[in-house]
C-alpha cells in the first residue's frame, strides 16, 4: 500500500517519478521543464490565468467559463477563437477527452484518426497527450486569453505535464474529486498520490516564477449538502498548498437556494483563509468559482437560458469571480462553438445588467446558513485532521473509508455512499441521511426539522423517489 502523507515531495523523488510518467507515451519526450518555464514567462499577463484573475480591475468581475473540447487541433483552435471573438469570453478551456483520462491511448488514436477522416469530433474532448506539447502550443498561440485544462482523471500526471508545458495556465487537479467521481478501480491513496505529483509539478513552476492555477473541484453533483462540498474542497486546498501551489480556484457547487449558497460561499471564503493561514500558507491566494450542481438540465431552450441566467446570478450573489456554467445544449450534447458563444453572451449580459447593483439575500436566513455550514464544515474537517494527527492526507484516507467524509454517488466501490442529501421546501440541501459524519445532535435536529417541513408539504416521507425528483428538478425548470 502506498504511504501517503501531506508532505512536500522531495525534488529528487519527484524527478525520478517524472521519468516514468513522461515515458508513458512518446509525446512525453517533448516536455522540457526549463524550456516550458521560459515559454510561460514570455506569455503576456492577459494570457495568464492567475494574473488575469488577480488584476484589480477584474476582482469584482464575474467571468463565464465552461468545458470546451473538440478532437483535432484545427477544430479546437476554431472553437476557442470563435468563443473568444463571438462569445466575448474572458477565459478559455481545453476539455480533455475521457479515453485520454483513463490512458486508453490506443482507442484515442483510433478516435483521432476517425475524426480527422470524417471531419467530425469522435472524442468527447481534446486528446492532449496525443497532440503533445507542440500541438498544444499551437492552440495557446492562436488565442489571446488564458486557457485552462478541464479533466477528471484518476491519474492525470501525463495530461498535466503536457498541457502545462504546452502553455495552459489553469488546470483541474483535485485528487479527492477524482477518486470519488472518476475512478472505480484505484484506492484513494493512489489517486491522491497521483495528484500530489501534479501539485508538486505546479509548485515547481511556481518556484520558478510561473503562476499556474489548479482547481479544487469539490463535489459537482445534485443534492449534496454544502458542508460536504466545502470540507472536500478544503482538504484538497491544503494538500495543494503543501506541494507549493500558490493560486487555487475553489469551485463551490451551488444548489439554488440562495441563502444557503451565498451563506456557504461566505463560509468557504472565511475558512479557506483561516485554514491556509493555520497551516502556514499565508501566501496562497484563492479564487472563488461557482456553478449550479450537475444534474439533469432542461432540453427546452427557454428553460435552458433561464438556467444560464440563474447560474450567473448565483455566481454574482456569491461574489464568485468565475461563473462555471453549462451551455444551452447541456442536456443534449457536447456544445458547438455557437452554443458556447451564445451561452457566454447570455451570461455576460445578465451579469452586466446587475453591474454595480447591490442585491442581497435575506440577511436572516443568510446568517443561519452561513453559521450552520461553518459549524458543520469545521466538525468534519477538524475530525479529518484529527484522524491524521494533524496530517490531512492521512486523515482523509481514513475518513473516506469510514464515511467520516462520504459521497452519495461515488463511482468507487470503496466508498460507503451512506450519506444522502435532499432538498428542503425552499431548495436548500439537507442531510436525509448523514451516514457516519461526525455531527452533533443539534445539527442533526436542524436538518431533521427542515426535512419534516417539506414532508408535511408533500404529505409523505421523503425517500429515494424524492431524491430522484430533486436530481431532475432543474431539467423541469424548478428548484424543488
Amino acid at each position, binding site marked *: 500500500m502506498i504511504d501517503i502523507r501531506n508532505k512536500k515531495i522531495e525534488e529528487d523523488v519527484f524527478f525520478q517519478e517524472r521519468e516514468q510518467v513522461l515515458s508513458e507515451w512518446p509525446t512525453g519526450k517533448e516536455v522540457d521543464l526549463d524550456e516550458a518555464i521560459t515559454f510561460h514567462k514570455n506569455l503576456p499577463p492577459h494570457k495568464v490565468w492567475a494574473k488575469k484573475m488577480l488584476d484589480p480591475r477584474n476582482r469584482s468581475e464575474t467571468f463565464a467559463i465552461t468545458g470546451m473540447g473538440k478532437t483535432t487541433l484545427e477544430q479546437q483552435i476554431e472553437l476557442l477563437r470563435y468563443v473568444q471573438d463571438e462569445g466575448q469570453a474572458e477565459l478559455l478551456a481545453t476539455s480533455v477527452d*475521457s479515453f485520454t483520462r483513463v490512458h486508453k491511448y490506443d482507442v484515442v488514436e*483510433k478516435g483521432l484518426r476517425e475524426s480527422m477522416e470524417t471531419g467530425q469530433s469522435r472524442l468527447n474532448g481534446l486528446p492532449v497527450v496525443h497532440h503533445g506539447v507542440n500541438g498544444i502550443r499551437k492552440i495557446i498561440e492562436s488565442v489571446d486569453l488564458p486557457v485552462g485544462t478541464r479533466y477528471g482523471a484518476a491519474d492525470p500526471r501525463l495530461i498535466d505535464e503536457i498541457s502545462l508545458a504546452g502553455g495552459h495556465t489553469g488546470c483541474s487537479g483535485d485528487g479527492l474529486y477524482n477518486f470519488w467521481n472518476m475512478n472505480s478501480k484505484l484506492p484513494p491513496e493512489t489517486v491522491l498520490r497521483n495528484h500530489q505529483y501534479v501539485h508538486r509539478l505546479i509548485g515547481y513552476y511556481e518556484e520558478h516564477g510561473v503562476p499556474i492555477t489548479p482547481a479544487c473541484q469539490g463535489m459537482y453533483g445534485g443534492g449534496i449538502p454544502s458542508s460536504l462540498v466545502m470540507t472536500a474542497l478544503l482538504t484538497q486546498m491544503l494538500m495543494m498548498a503543501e506541494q507549493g501551489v500558490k493560486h487555487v480556484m475553489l469551485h463551490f457547487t451551488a444548489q439554488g437556494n440562495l441563502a444557503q449558497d451565498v451563506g456557504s460561499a461566505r463560509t468557504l471564503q472565511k475558512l479557506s483563509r483561516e485554514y491556509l493561514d493555520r497551516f502556514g500558507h499565508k501566501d496562497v491566494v484563492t479564487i472563488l468559482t461557482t456553478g449550479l450542481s450537475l444534474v439533469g438540465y432542461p432540453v427546452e431552450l427557454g428553460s435552458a437560458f433561464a438556467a444560464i441566467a440563474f447560474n450567473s446570478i448565483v455566481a454574482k450573489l456569491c461574489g464568485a469571480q468565475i461563473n462555471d456554467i453549462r451551455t444551452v445544449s447541456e442536456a443534449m450534447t457536447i456544445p458547438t462553438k455557437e452554443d458556447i458563444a451564445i451561452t457566454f453572451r447570455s451570461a455576460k449580459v445578465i451579469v452586466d445588467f446587475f453591474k454595480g447593483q447591490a442585491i442581497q439575500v435575506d440577511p436572516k436566513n443568510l446568517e443561519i446558513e452561513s453559521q450552520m455550514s461553518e459549524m458543520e464544515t469545521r466538525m468534519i474537517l477538524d475530525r479529518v485532521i484529527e484522524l491524521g494527527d494533524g496530517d490531512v492526507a492521512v486523515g482523509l484516507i481514513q475518513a473516506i473509508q469510514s464515511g467520516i467524509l462520504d459521497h452519495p*454517488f461515488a463511482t468507487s466501490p470503496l466508498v460507503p455512499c451512506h450519506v444522502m442529501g435532499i432538498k428542503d421546501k425552499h431548495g436548500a440541501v439537507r442531510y436525509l441521511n448523514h451516514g457516519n459524519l461526525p455531527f452533533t445532535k443539534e445539527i442533526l435536529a436542524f436538518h431533521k426539522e427542515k426535512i419534516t417541513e417539506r414532508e408535511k408539504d408533500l404529505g409523505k416521507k421523503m425517500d429515494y423517489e424524492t431524491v430522484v425528483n430533486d436530481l431532475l428538478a432543474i431539467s423541469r425548470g424548478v428548484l424543488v
Partner: protein
Amino acid sequence: MTDENETKGTMVTGVIGDDVHVVGIRILEHALREAGFKVVALGVQVSQEEFIDAATETNADAILVSSLSGHAQILAPGLREKCIEAGLNDIRLYLGGQLMIGKTAWEDVEKTFMDMGFNRVYPPGVLPPQIIKDLEADLASKK
C-alpha cells in the same frame, strides 16, 4: 420488494468503457429493484467482457448498458457478437444515456445502435417507469 424467488427477471447493469456517469444507472437500478427485478450492478467503467461474464454467471435476462460520455459509437460495437459467442443467444440488450457526440437526429442515433444488435435504445431523459414497462413487455413476449 418482491421475494427473490419471484423476481421478474435478472438484469445486469453497468456504465460502459471510460464512462463514469453513475447517477442515471443508480436511479435505474433502484427503480428496477423496487419493481421486482433482480439487479446485478457492475458500476462504472465496465468492459464488454465484464458485462458478458456477469450475464453468464447470473443467467441474466437482459444487459442494461449505460453510456453518457458520448463514446457509445466506439464502445458498443461487438457486444451482441460477443454475447452470441458466449452462448447468450436470446439475451436482451438495452442501451441508454447520451449516446452520440454532436447533434444527430434521434432516428439516426437509434438506427445506428439497433443495427448493432441492441433491442432497445433510449434517448436522454427517459424515466424508469417507461423502461420498466418495456422490459416487462419484452420479457413476457420472450416466454
